[in-house]
């Protein structure tokens, strides 16, 4: 995507730019930032080799250890409940991953 004469400098600008790149449409930015953006805060294993502010494009994330991602413009290599449409409140039970990850359970689709 061309920059179109605008280059995002701070994080708020980059959040808007990513929305555009990933075709998220005109989602309310307040809602988008209320969720974990990108990968989870703690077990985001890609960061050492692909330090932010770029996305962890080339890195795979061990799904066994990371349960709260897949929100916003982030791809996901394994099956986890989708927290955008069907289980929007799933991660409420896990406010801090390093303490609360045990609370995250499987979702059984009926």
């Amino acid at each position, binding site marked *: 995507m*061309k920059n*179109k*004469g*605008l*280059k*995002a*400098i*701070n*994080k*708020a*600008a*980059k*959040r*808007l*730019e*990513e*929305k*555009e790149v990933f075709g998220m449409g*005109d989602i309310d*930015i*307040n809602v988008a*930032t209320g969720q*974990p*953006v*990108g*990968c*989870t*805060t*703690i077990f*985001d294993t890609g*960061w050492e080799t692909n*330090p*932010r*502010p770029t996305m962890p494009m080339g890195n795979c994330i061990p799904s066994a250890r990371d349960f709260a991602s897949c929100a916003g413009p982030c791809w996901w290599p394994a099956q986890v409940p989708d927290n955008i449409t069907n289980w929007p409140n799933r991660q409420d039970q896990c*406010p*801090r991953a*390093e*303490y*609360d990850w045990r609370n995250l359970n499987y979702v059984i689709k009926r």
Partner: protein
Amino acid sequence: MPRFKVADYKIFHANGKNFVFLIDDKAIFEMDDQIGDIIAEWEKVSDFNDQEFLASLPDDLEDRDELFNSLLCKHLIVPISKGGPKKKYHEKGCSAHLSVQTLVLHLTDFCNLGCVYCYHDQWESPATQKKRMPFHVGKKAVDFALEHSNNYGRVLLVFFGGEPLLELDLIKSIADYAVREGERRGIQVEFSMTTNGTLLTQEAIDVICRCNMGITVSIDGFPEVQNRNRPFRDGRPSYDKVVWNVRKLLEVTKRPVVARVTVTRNPENLQRILEHLLELGFTEVGFSPVTSGASGYKLNKEEMTTLLAQFKVLSKRFLQSIERREFFGFSNIIDLVVTLHQGELMDYPCGAGLSLFAVNPEGRLFVCQRFINQADFCVGDISNGFDLEKLLEFRKQVHIGQKKECVDCWVRTICTGGCYHEACLREGDFAKPNIHYCEWIKDWTKVGLETYVRIAADSPASLDELSLMRGYSPMRNL
């Protein structure tokens, strides 16, 4: 057909480049001349549709649709029907969410210094009415904080006063209890303390190190200023004592120790004061203009101008140090740069009454430490919990949506009206914005924006390092 308008913005320049700060998104973009011309032109048209916009673009411009979509996605152009964030402020109202992330423990009303500008003086009571927090209240306050941490997993306890180190035994008991109780409940308890530095005995330093306590020392700089503004109660000078103690602390503590300077009349020496305090070993030095009601110490207009000039020089030195990959501990610019870097949207200027509360020696809860013992700002007590009605009324009153004077201001999402306590003293109403320093804040924010984009160009990684120092996890970076 949807109608659009140009979002509220502020243009600024640095390094020969143009930048745009989108006010309601707190987003900063570097911008080429063409975009600058387009938004300047369409800003004059308060209401347009996409066809009108596209038709105005030069014929030879490729991807005109894409340009429009890009401006829309990046919020330079916003749909009118949505009303923009200004309207959103009013609709959203205030949060009823209850959690405590920081609890300030007002351990004692007593202090061994007699600072000339102390904001406690205005409601100072006779010694017989002054109170100290008994341990059972401190213990209950810890329980209260832990119970209200709402799965956040972490609570910060701040030892405050008066001079908190007059109550060293109490600090020890409370800290021990809080660590024990925190471990039991799986909540991490952190400590910090603001002290005048006169009572940093070896025993106190041991406690500080053991609790890994973050320390801020109130100190005004050179001996003559410190001794004049911050003497002991009996008039003896305090500088030598503070410096002697602080040196001992700095030798052993692993955490950064911050100096907080209250700026009174004659603010022309800030550079020298900052150098002096950094030489003593402080990691950072922050400056606050005095907020006392005592008019003799308030900065007048010229002095505020001098203060800004000094801040500009110090910001320049901060920038140069970043270029040399060094750290120059000027807190005020670090705070501003980190705020701009994170770009978080806020409806309130601070956490007072949201996730920060202060508890007095009797166990009553106040919206922050500055309003301690003021009945109007009491929002419950640690035995019976929050007075929800009063707290929500407070939140409603101080919400940015209520501050009519701020609606058209370009720094509204950064300043958000400023300190409630200062507004109380200067504007006569805690819920009013601090109009008295509006222009100053705008000028200072401009310095911050220019400094920020220069760092972003030269050393972007240092922005994440600075954010980390302010408690932002680098892994949440985007």
